[in-house]
């Protein structure tokens, strides 16, 4: 009877932790910063057609404001929500370093967990669902693109197709 698996769902419990569901239900940083200098990058997940944009406003090399919009599953949304909470106030170098740690973490490098601030360790369960890693990466990849080339402001991406 299938319910036997459901009651013993350790991997599921690990992936859909209450922490993640909270971020999904009430995400932080929803909406791109309303600032003419906002730098926006978009990532699409071709598997499901989801699209997510991350916008940052830099003051010098410090991320002064950050936000996201678009449609995504619980994992994509929670990851984006956590991103906005952790990189605000960081320098570009710090944020890029964090993005790379998250990347390693999502690909199963559990040692990185201790370096991750805030609720990010709650994403640990995602690593056990390889087909969902792409969902969690979207926001971090968009952030990296948005801040990677700090010299040139990126053009504002076209409206996300729903």
């Amino acid at each position, binding site marked *: *009877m*299938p*319910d036997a*698996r*459901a009651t013993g*769902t350790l*991997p*599921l419990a690990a*992936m*859909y932790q209450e922490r993640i*569901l909270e971020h999904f*239900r009430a995400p932080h940083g929803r909406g791109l910063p309303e600032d003419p200098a906002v730098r926006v990058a978009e990532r699409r997940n071709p*598997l*499901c*057609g*989801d*699209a997510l944009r991350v916008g940052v406003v830099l003051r010098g090399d410090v991320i002064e404001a950050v936000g996201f919009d678009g*449609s*995504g*599953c*619980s*994992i994509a949304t929670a990851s984006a929500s956590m991103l906005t909470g952790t990189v605000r106030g960081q320098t570009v170098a710090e944020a890029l370093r964090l993005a790379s740690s998250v990347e390693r973490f999502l690909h199963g490098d559990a040692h990185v967990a201790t370096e991750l601030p805030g609720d990010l360790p709650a994403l640990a369960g995602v690593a056990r*669902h390889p*087909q*969902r890693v792409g*969902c969690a990466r979207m926001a971090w990849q968009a952030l990296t693109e948005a801040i990677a080339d700090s010299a040139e402001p990126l053009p504002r991406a076209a409206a996300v*197709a*729903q």
Partner: protein
Amino acid sequence: MTTSLIAEGTTAHASLAPRHDFPLLAEQPALRYLDSAATSQKPQVVLDALTGFYATANANPHRGAYALSAAATDAYHAARATIARFLGAADPETLVFTRGTTEAMNLVANAWGAAHVQAGDEIVVTALEHHANFIPWQQLAKRTGATFRIVELTADQRIDLDHLASLLSSRTRVVAITHVSNAVGAITPVHEVVRLVRAHTNALLVLDGAQGAPHLPVAFDTLGVDFYAFSGHKMLGPMGIGGVIGTRARWAECQPWQFGGDMIEWVHDQDSTWNVLPYRFEAGTPNAADAVGLAAGVQYLAALDMAAVRAHELALLDYAHARLADVEGLHIFGPPPAERSGVLSFALADVHPHDLATILDEHGVCIRAGHHCAQPLMRRLGVSATARASLYVYTDARDIDALVDALVHARRIFGATS
């Protein structure tokens, strides 16, 4: 709690084909495979036919002047005849093998389209199409300067026949329509479409049978369309084999589109002449082994009887609808079961289809979450993706029950409120 229901359901809705005929399902008794619209599981007879070809008849068909090559050629020809007969085509040579529906549509768009479509012409598809029956025509229109027109849908995702009729004119050169929607299961009223297209145009009428041939009886010779494409792997056959059946008259209008071995009559220094149908459109070493495998698959389906396959899926759909009515916040896309193939495409409140698929996977329930290669349809539904459970001959009530239990669990996890 649901034990009695399941037991009752199992008696009422056993599978049509025994699960133990399918090695993968026999090996994994707890697996609830509900993704047959993506690809079907394969019965032992298909695996045996594949192995049998390689073990007893493996040589390059049409090549060697030795008995083994003749055996390979015979097996390949016999497979063509079997599959053509299954799809109601009396003339096996009007069936051209391809890798599947995608290659078949590219074949027709290139072999017929490139020679017959020009600027000012119109190509008509529907908003229901799989990308495989959308992009080849979209790109043909772009290359030739033809106008690309899209038939819109009714509120329950059926083809809007009035809109189709309004788009047809003497300028219409191609009408390419799905037999059954892969994304929501809507069954196209083919006779009505044929009547409209023939009454208003001289257009080429192409049917995408990727989801039709596996689930409904198909009689090509009485269908009235010019080409009918299908994929073997969705109808118990191996991956990498499928084909397209056409009328002799339409094949005669086609130009070769891939060049190489087997498809030529004679190669001169500066030009070449072509082999006859069907070989003219089958360049290179044919996929004889997979054709033999698919022939075993359609013989298995024929023994089940395609009318019984349809009746089985319809009964399961009705059962699923009754059980899913208990799942709060569930919306099923597409027309009612009577006008739908064995597809349940749905949304559960505001739970993302990817999240649903992951939770269902933990219950051993395999469904597809995504845009189903039908992004034009997703745009019209106003979603980026749907969750899709799809049925076949080995599906039974236990599969549906597991789906319902898993959906209830998903609702609990997400505390969905709507």
